[in-house]
């Protein structure tokens, strides 16, 4: 199985959740993070010279899914999370070796 982790704009969370829901992907874990991207986060021109680089609030979503679901999920996230502006975020795919339910016995 795979873990799909997406860092998105906080404002896009509802849209992404709904888009995933519509395609039948429900389970997910969400957390609030801060981040900066390849553009060194955001550069704010300050008083001509000073450049302030800082991290800004993001939302991290991750979903542990079957291998074949990775592609449709990443596609859905990309479509629903995109604004075309800097800071749209990233998706990472990593391996999961086992998933265990706590309530049910496996």
């Amino acid at each position, binding site marked *: 199985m795979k873990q799909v982790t997406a860092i998105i704009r906080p404002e896009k969370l*509802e849209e992404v959740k709904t888009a995933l829901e519509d395609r039948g992907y429900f389970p997910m874990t969400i957390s609030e993070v801060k981040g900066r991207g390849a553009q060194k986060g955001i550069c704010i021109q300050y008083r001509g010279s000073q450049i302030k680089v800082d991290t800004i609030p993001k939302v991290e979503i991750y979903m542990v899914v079957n291998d074949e679901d990775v592609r449709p999920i990443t596609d859905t996230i990309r479509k629903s999370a995109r604004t075309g502006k800097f800071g749209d975020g990233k998706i990472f795919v990593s391996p999961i070796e086992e998933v265990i339910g706590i309530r049910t016995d496996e």
Partner: protein
Amino acid sequence: MPISAGDTAFIIICTALVMLMTPGVGLFYGGMVRRKNLISMIAMSFVSFAIVSIQWVTVGYTLSFGSDIAGFIGGLDHLFLNGVGMDGDGIPDMLFMVFQLAFAGVTLAILTSGVAGRIKLSSFMVLGVLWTTLVYDPLAHWAWGGGWAHSLGALDFAGGTVVHISSGFGALALALVIGNRVGFGKYSMEAENVPITLLGGAMLWFGWFAFNAGSALAADGLAVNALVVTNISAASGAITWMLASWIKGKPSSLGLISGAVAGLVAITPGSGFVGPMAAIFIGGSAGLLCYSALLFRVRKGLDESLDAWAVHGVGGFWGAIATGIFATAAIGGVNGLLYGNPGQFVIQLVDASVAAIYAFGMTYILAKLVDKIMGLRVTEEEEYVGLDISQHGESTIA
């Protein structure tokens, strides 16, 4: 009349309570924006209060309460508080001055909501001084300083027109000039800290007692009437807005508190003129009316971000008219429509309309001006990272 210790005690404390409304506004709005702008919203309320405090004791007070010039503005006789002393009529003149200062401060703080999350701090400071001087001060003069509205007999007990119509319609103009937030309508910009908004709302409800009751300028029966109807109207507005939003979904606590504020706004002009049972109706209909205005505003795709227009503008307008309907001579010496004086209703309508148009138009001009000279809006990048970081270099944890 000599200085009365009772009245002076009353108005000093009322001044403190009204002052607390300004950070109250900051918290109220701060909870409604995205976290990255939370500090900015609160800070702007303090900035408003600080700059108005200085503006008022230098030029603002005299422009509002100096000797009348053509019904439009006060003269410069009280420049730098010249002639405003520790004695007076019932309460020291100086006390009246500072009580009024607190009103001017909170009004500017309300105005910040229209430009939440996208105004440059420096431009806001310049705009704030201009706005208080050219919008607030004239309106205060018209209603309370001997201006034309006063002469006409328009009733505004505690600032429905001066405070709420001015800031509500001003915020609307400001929002039009500065434009919608990036992504407005495309993604959710829901309130991110409801408890802070509720706390701010509590501070407003609390301070409003002083705002309205204190406007009697004496600790007497009239002040008590204002106190009573203020609370009734707030409660009534809270209930109707909550119920209305319940029909459409869940009864959010934001609806509840917004309704309370709507009720508080609507009773403000009439609090010294209408009775308790009228207040149930005035507040209740304010809840429904302001909620409808909010829905209308959203449908129009207009980012008047935290609904100063819907709540303060529309609520204040309704309050002005309602005063013209429900005023009864038994309380404030003037009758309204219901008590056989339709003329008062017309006067109220005229007064509120002129104030709304003036506030909207003048704010529009000032905003355009500041925008031209120094730019009103932060860059898109600054907006994206949020005003906390970009304007203040600070951020809320997590």
